[in-house]
């Protein structure tokens, strides 16, 4: 898997490159600003770009804008946005309409090395990755209604689905079988009245749409 990293902090950029290389990915470019990022994505055809939200020169939300542009012009390249702060507004803006090949994580998540690598890989493969904190806030906001009908385990599964995990990933996380996860998923969709979705990122969208409603 080919990766481009856009991050203006040199130490963090080097650490990320090291981490992803160790995980067997090929880091084909390291950018310090949005302009360099766009050029590297165009020239080196990566599978995924790991992008900091705030970058020079304006230090506002160029990462979000770059992510949207990349998804538009290079649909084969996924974008994982890293942010110092979790802002649902950005997350939903980014993933709200098409979650495929998109991710939004708190920067601190890089410290959970394996899970972070998994997120990068998922986004690179066209899946999605939404920060668990954002998910739990969305879940927390929807108190009452059909969510109350879910068992605690089903709520856990719903949250992991919203993060963009596959059944396989959920099963690993919860240390259960994939069969068990599938049963939970069917039950959840039934209780929430959602149409069953095959692809993981479609599932994310359906869950997000439900949580935002």
């Amino acid at each position: 898997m080919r990766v481009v990293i856009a991050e203006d902090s040199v130490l963090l950029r080097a650490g990320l490159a090291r981490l992803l290389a160790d995980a067997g990915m090929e880091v084909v470019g390291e950018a310090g600003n949005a302009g360099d990022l766009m050029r590297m994505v165009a020239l080196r055809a990566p599978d995924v770009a790991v992008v900091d939200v705030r970058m020079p020169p304006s230090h506002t939300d160029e990462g979000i804008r770059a992510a949207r542009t990349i998804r538009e012009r290079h649909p084969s390249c996924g974008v994982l946005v890293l942010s110092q702060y979790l802002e649902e507004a950005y997350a939903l803006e980014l993933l709200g309409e098409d979650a495929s090949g998109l991710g939004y994580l708190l920067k601190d998540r890089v410290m959970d090395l394996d899970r972070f690598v998994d997120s990068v890989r998922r986004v690179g493969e066209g899946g999605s990755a939404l920060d668990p904190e954002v998910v739990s806030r969305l879940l927390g906001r929807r108190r009452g209604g059909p969510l109350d009908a879910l068992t605690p385990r089903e709520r856990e599964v719903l949250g992991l689905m919203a993060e963009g995990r596959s059944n396989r990933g959920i099963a690993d996380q919860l240390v259960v079988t994939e069969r068990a996860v599938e049963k939970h998923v069917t039950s959840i969709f039934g209780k929430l009245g959602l149409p069953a979705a095959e692809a993981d990122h479609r599932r994310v969208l359906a869950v997000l749409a439900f949580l935002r409603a």
Partner: protein
Amino acid sequence: MSGSAETAPAAGATAVDGGSIGAGWRGAMLALGLAGLAAGLVALALELASDQDDALPTGLAVLSSVVGWAFVGVGLFAWWRRPDNRVGAIMTATGFAWFLHSLVAANSAPVFTAGLVLQNLAIPLAFSLTAFPTGRIPTRPERLVVAGAWVWATLLTLALALVTVPGPGEPENLVLVGDGGGLESTFRVIHESVIIALAVALIGALGARWRTSSAPQRRELAPVFGAGAAAAAMLAILTLVDATTDSTAASNTFRALTFLAVAGLPFGFLAGLVRARVVAGRGMTTLVQRLGDVPAPGVLRDALADALGDPSLDIAYWVPEAAEYVDAQGRPSPLPGPGSGRSWTPVEREGRRVAVLFHDPALDRDPEAVRAAGAAAALALENARLDAELRRRVVDLRESRARIIAAGDAERRRMERNLHDGAQQRLVGLALSLRLARRHVGDGSPAAPLLDDAADELAETLAELRELARGLHPALLSERGLDAALPALAGRSTVPVSLVATPGERLPPSVETAAYFVVAEALTNVAKYANASRAEVSVARENGRAVVEVRDDGVGGADPAAGSGLRGLADRVGALDGRLEVRSPAGGGTVVRAEIPCAS
């Protein structure tokens, strides 16, 4: 002292007190007066001694000299009062020129001939009285008419003299060219047509100026313009009558009427002066009555405007500490500059500057009236001045408070950015490096738990630092406004929050920041003290105000004076001219409501 855009160069030198004029000047005036008297007597003698067939009857001859004397007399009076103003000089000159037309009554050929050439010079001079009241002819049409009158009185009159064949009883015309070539009647028709046209044009020009004049200007112009228009009309009619009738009686009747109308000019001028004084006097009595109680600033202005007959009058008050004038609301009110078409007169009380009256330049011609009105109102103006000075201080304080808060906000934003781009970034990098290093250390190594602990500690530090930075300044707020920042705020609350309304648009940054911190602080208090099961937040724009409301269903009893948080918020809201209100009856929940003006 007064200043005005219209009469700026003359204003400082305005002499209202005749006593300040030197004795030489007074002697010259006296000499001119005596000369005028003598000239009138000579003219009268010429008329009465005339052997000509159409010599003026005695009554008309006397009236003619009286008209001339009226011009000289009133002209000298005006000249003496206002030496800087040319109107008096023009009027005096008109009087002297008026006597010239009697030369044609002479029996001596040289005097008669001089009369033929010079007899009409009084007309352009009289036309020049449109320079009233400033001494300068203000409009282009008026200047054109006056120029035309000069051409008529000199060139056309000379041309007519060159072809005038003396009538029965008249002495020889010494400048007659040959036998006149029979051109006299043609030239006379042209001569008469031109003066009729000029008289009509003058009336039109006066009318045009009248229509664009302000109320005080009109009050001043009325008698002079009335008399001037009447005289011009009579001049045209007389010329027409002279040309169309052979009846000496009819001609003399109209001549008498014309003389009376022309005499109206100096008397109209006098009447204007007197009338202004009467009006001012009456206005002053009313002014003093109206100032009896302590008047509100608006009433004070109206009273002065009425007393001086200038609806445009305005007042500004002197603030010594700032060395500037301010209006009744305490806002700076600079003196009108040149070309603004406004004049001003300062008001002093016991030698100290109190206020300045902004008024119509027409009032500069009657500075005593303005000064008298100012003096009558000085005490009331001093009271109003103290009020305006306080208001100015309030305006100042409010502005400086807003500036201090804005500076604080800017500093917080800068610190937040520095944290974000500096320490936070480096710590994340460091944490990642520690985790990577940990991978290369076996689980059994004594370094392993140390590295794990260090990384965990770093994660905690990062979380704390993030909260600290967010508390300094929420980046999302400046980037996306309240619509994005409020849901994020609500989402972080430990008490369920429903967001009822957000503005749906960007508000001024200072308003957004204040509204955000009001909601943040209120929600913090809800979580800490209210013991509430839910809270509601709404921020909406209503009638040019941002209305922020946070209500909960908790225990109430919050004391806004107790916590420094709410106190600081009230200051922040107050600096924007807004209000913060906390209603928190015991057991009845708490409502925090802020209203902040936000002009778009």
